[in-house]
């Protein structure tokens, strides 16, 4: 978390549904927590697992991935491809210490401005409650190895 304990939330959203849903939250003047930063992609299908790893590496306290509801993808199936990808990646990251409080997936349509605002508020509250990720974030950039981490080879299953 950066200054004053404000969590950092990076959102990867598609252009056609969730970005437009966030626009609608704006035109409807719905207020939500200001910590989210949106990176716009054409489709959730464009989002590589490396984007998420990079965001955590840079110190994001949470990452949000959001696109069109199943069946509504502007590109017919990009979101389905993405969903399958996340079905595996989120489990892998959870296994290694980035759990579902930190990695949120959502379908938000262009009509769901309220849902977008609610989601950002919920996610922000959840991340605040979980506390800063920095210390526990296994992906976090550190400039030197922590002394207790420097260990010799040891075989284990």
């Amino acid at each position, binding site marked *: 978390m950066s200054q004053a304990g404000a969590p950092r939330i990076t959102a990867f959203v598609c252009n056609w549904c969730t970005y437009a849903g966030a626009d609608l939250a704006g035109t409807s003047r719905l207020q939500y927590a200001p910590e989210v930063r949106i990176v716009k992609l054409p489709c959730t*299908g464009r989002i590589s697992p490396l*984007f998420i790893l990079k965001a955590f590496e840079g110190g994001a306290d949470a990452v949000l991935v959001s696109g069109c509801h199943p069946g509504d993808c502007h590109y*017919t199936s990009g979101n389905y491809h993405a969903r399958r990808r996340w079905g595996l990646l989120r489990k892998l990251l959870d296994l290694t210490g980035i759990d579902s409080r930190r990695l949120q997936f959502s379908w938000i349509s262009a009509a769901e401005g309220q849902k977008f605002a609610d989601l950002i508020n919920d996610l922000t509250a959840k991340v605040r409650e979980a506390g800063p990720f920095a210390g526990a974030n296994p992906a976090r950039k550190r400039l030197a190895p922590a002394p207790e981490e420097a260990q010799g080879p040891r075989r284990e299953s």
Partner: protein
Amino acid sequence: MSRLGVFVCHCGENIGRTVDCAAVAAAAARFPGVVHSVDYKYMCSDPGQSMIKKAIADLKLTGVVVAACSPRMHERTFRSAAAQAGLNPYLLEMANVREHCSWVHADRAAATAKAVELVRLMVEKTRRDRALRPVRVPVEPTAMVVGGGIAGIQAALDIAAGGKKVVLVESGPSIGGHMARLSETFPTLDCSQCILTPRMVEAASHPNIRLMTYAEVAAVEGFVGNFEVTVRRKARFVDPDKCTGCGDCWNRCPQKRIPSEFDAGLGARRAIYVPFPQAVPNKPVIDAERCTMLKQGKCGLCAKVCPRGAVDFKDRDRLEKVKVGAVVLATGFELWDHASYGEYGGGRLADVIDGFAFERLASASGPTGGAIKRPSDGAEPKTVVFIQCCGSRDEKKGLPYCSKICCMYTAKHAMLYRHKVHDGEATVFYMDIRATGKGYEEFVRRAIDNDGARYVRGRVSRVYRRQDGRLVVKGADTLAGRPVTVLADMVVLADAVRPRRGSERLAQLFGVGYDQHGFYSEAHPKLRPVETAAAGVFLAGACQAPKDIPDAVAQASAAAAKTLGLFSQPQLEREPVIARVNRNLCSHCRSCVHTCPYGAVKDFEVKDRAGSVLKVVAEVNEGLCQGCGTCVAVCRSHCIDLDGFTDEQIHAQIAALEAA
């Protein structure tokens, strides 16, 4: 080196009220690559746009970030302003500090800090923008319509009326489709042939329409504006240029007992035949499976009697390539086979017939001359039972959907029957009556109130034949709550509507999606009902879902309008958001090929000068790529990238968040 300009808009008070725009501009001035950063009351106004244009020219800007409203609002505005100033429009990006910031946050400090970061994100992206040119694809202004039923005919006529050429491909010997088989049409009881045949003749004689009957699509290459369709022209064994349609041949053909497909098997045709007297073209074909000359080398009577020498037993299927810019699929429907309903006789009872058979019995040009006679013995049936939803709305043994047209044509059938057999009894078993078109409910009421059709709400459990030949129909009247038995002379089943056999194969050729039943998928169920996922391929009629004639015709005209819209420009201009493969690094795992929703990624053989294949890699077809980037994300080595949303840009944006 980048020379970026940042322009922060106050949007009157809309942004300025919560975001300190001057502070944002000041912060942006310190971002790497930014040489000019200002704020202004209304960036989208004329003076605002002029300010941007002047800065581009005076400061030789290589990129522009406008921090204002949503790009969905004004990206086009600002990009065209940039273009007017000589900057490639794709080098201008917008930071959304209104919808995503000032309108949703109240805290001025927090909103300003966020706005600075949003600008920073777009500065990092813009620094890595490349000049892009819209993809321009030449358009061949000729359309292909596949399917010569009423939907296909209507689409062809409308496109032709718009001044564009049309190739109308029909698999049968004549155009006309199912509508040519109908006796009369609901809800007006117009004679179907009377309204259809003039359209058929018009299509055949229109200078912009080329008919290809007895022909099928065999292969498709290319993409929107530039399809090359290979059409298989099936052997007719009759030279249509020589044939005058005099009829001498088919009158002499000794094969007299071939069940006529057109007459639903109730009438007969010859081995050399036109399917019905008003066929267009009115030129016969030889049924190679039934002709003894073609099968055994005996007969040849038709060739002998033909005064024009038009019969050619050596004729073979031919492939012809046609270049077209757009395609309308109008392949229609067929009836579900009620043989799966063992309880209704499983298709074995002669007097249990489908709706088309009843149409032919009722048709003045049909095998009985319009007299209602039951197939088994030709007697006039005095009691007829009509059973709706035969195969429709039956997830277990039939199809789960409503076939939409059966309620109406059953009412019509009951009505026609009562008009022709005054002392006859018509009983209709139904689940619900769905009569939602203009004049439809009134039509059904007329069948009940004026023509005395007896409507029984309930399912028929069984139909069987009694010793004396009469049919026993056992069902339930669910309104009265009691079982019903009707003794009938004939039973008419309203079989479910399903897509034509082979519709999936055609969809695969054109890259069009289809549902589990084989109905073609529209691009959007509400807002793009005639387009498909394949750009330049449109839908008309019952190939998309069960439809009656008015709906099919309306959709056909819509598909024609879409086609004419596509043809209104000599070139197609598309957003240049296109995926590109780095051939040197591609390992040809083919994940992208499987992934692409548009089939735009194909294998490409890299060859040396001698033409031998060095390696195979993936390649993106610019005409088909829609720019979703899904292939990019499945590429493990990241050797595909997406123009406009490159890995480098996204990486820089994520990194900018870290630094901020």
